[in-house]
């Protein structure tokens, strides 16, 4: 088991940083959290991720790992003898988990974010409809992947749970902003229950940001145009 120095560069509000945090918690790894200042990028961040200049960056024994999903896989592999497995064990299940994690980042998240950046009601409605459609696919994916168990990964939270679950705080903020519920017992019964279980998980509960704090931060990041 690796016991060297572990640092995580990030921000309390970032979905992608949260993924790394959950993985570290799952494996009971102690780490130093280096909070970036909003509006500027630290020298360490720029030095550790010169290509993208983005957070999160995991620094393990002075070696940086970038990109949230890659960090999660790294944590699973570097600390493979501690804590539960984050990736499923069967290659086919791993391929499916990777597929949906990529879908979440490349398609689902883009439409979720476009609700916050929408100019005018028409654009907002279109984005909402798109998120509805894409969330339906995730509901089906959950049923297929979980096979009746509590999480995408089965009995314990894993890669795909982390990929989607990290969005739950922001998702709630978007629901409030758009005055539209995406996760509910009638439309998305499986995901609605999964969301509660995910947020209650001991690896997640202590680090899920408060919705009111996030909503305030969202107003800073996505200011509304003056009427």
């Amino acid at each position, binding site marked *: 088991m690796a016991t060297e120095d572990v640092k995580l560069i990030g921000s309390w509000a970032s979905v992608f940083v949260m993924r790394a945090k959950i993985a570290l918690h799952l494996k009971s790894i102690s780490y130093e959290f280096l909070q970036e200042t909003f509006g500027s990028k630290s020298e360490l961040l720029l030095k550790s991720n010169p290509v993208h200049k983005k957070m999160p960056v995991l620094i393990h024994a002075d070696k940086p790992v970038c990109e949230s999903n890659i960090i999660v896989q790294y944590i699973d592999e570097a600390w493979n003898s501690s804590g539960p497995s984050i990736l499923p064990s069967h290659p086919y299940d791993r391929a499916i988990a990777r*597929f949906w994690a990529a879908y979440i980042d490349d398609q689902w998240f883009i439409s979720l974010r476009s609700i916050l950046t929408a100019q005018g009601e028409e654009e907002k409605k279109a984005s909402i409809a798109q998120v509805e459609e894409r969330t339906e696919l995730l509901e089906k994916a959950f049923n297929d992947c979980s096979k009746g168990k509590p999480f995408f990964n089965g009995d314990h939270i894993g890669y795909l749970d982390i990929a989607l679950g990290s969005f739950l705080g922001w998702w709630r903020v978007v629901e409030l902003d758009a005055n539209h519920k995406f996760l509910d017992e009638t439309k998305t019964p499986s995901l609605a229950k999964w969301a509660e279980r995910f947020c209650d998980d001991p690896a997640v509960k202590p680090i899920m940001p408060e919705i009111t704090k996030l909503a305030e931060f969202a107003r800073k990041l996505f200011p509304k145009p003056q009427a």
Partner: protein
Amino acid sequence: MANEVILLDFWPSMFGMRTRIALREKGVEFEYREEDLRNKSPLLLQMNPIHKKIPVLIHNGKPVNESIIQVQYIDEVWSHKNPILPSDPYQRAQARFWADFIDKKLYDAQRKVWATKGEEQEAGKKDFIEILKTLESELGDKPYFGGDDFGYVDIALIGFYTWFPAYEKFANFSIESEVPKLIAWVKKCLQRESVAKSLPDPEKVTEFVSELRKKFVPE
């Protein structure tokens, strides 16, 4: 059950090339099926309903989609020879990072090079060269991206080479003069049987891109 492997693909696709190479690296027998992208087969639509794209790898009736995911899948299922990802977790993270970089940056940049003209094309060409230079710098003096052994990042990148003459033709520049070390790496990869068998003739690709360009840049 015997291993039945089908690959739904489109011959000039740099993504399909990745999966072809990976299968050949592992010595896996597979049935290659050419798709007409203007008339997608029912099998393609059934096996990749979300994206409706090639390549689609069908292993014993079950689909695996997205080329980079297919390459990892092939490496994990046929783990007995020619490892594609290294075994060290940090090296694996680096390999994944660079394959992801190629997917995030190179495709969009190269598209501007052949599918646009004027200022937009010039800007695309600049980006494209910059990205290749970053990759060349990452390669450094190593024989392959992962070091001594041909692997994941090499597989992720090499297919784009077949489109290089097309880029050079339509944007009027020489890639070798910009990134000579990268071209040397290309030549080394081409000596590998799995690569030589999986890549189409770049001249044929240029003809194909020529036709395609007419749709985007009416002359």
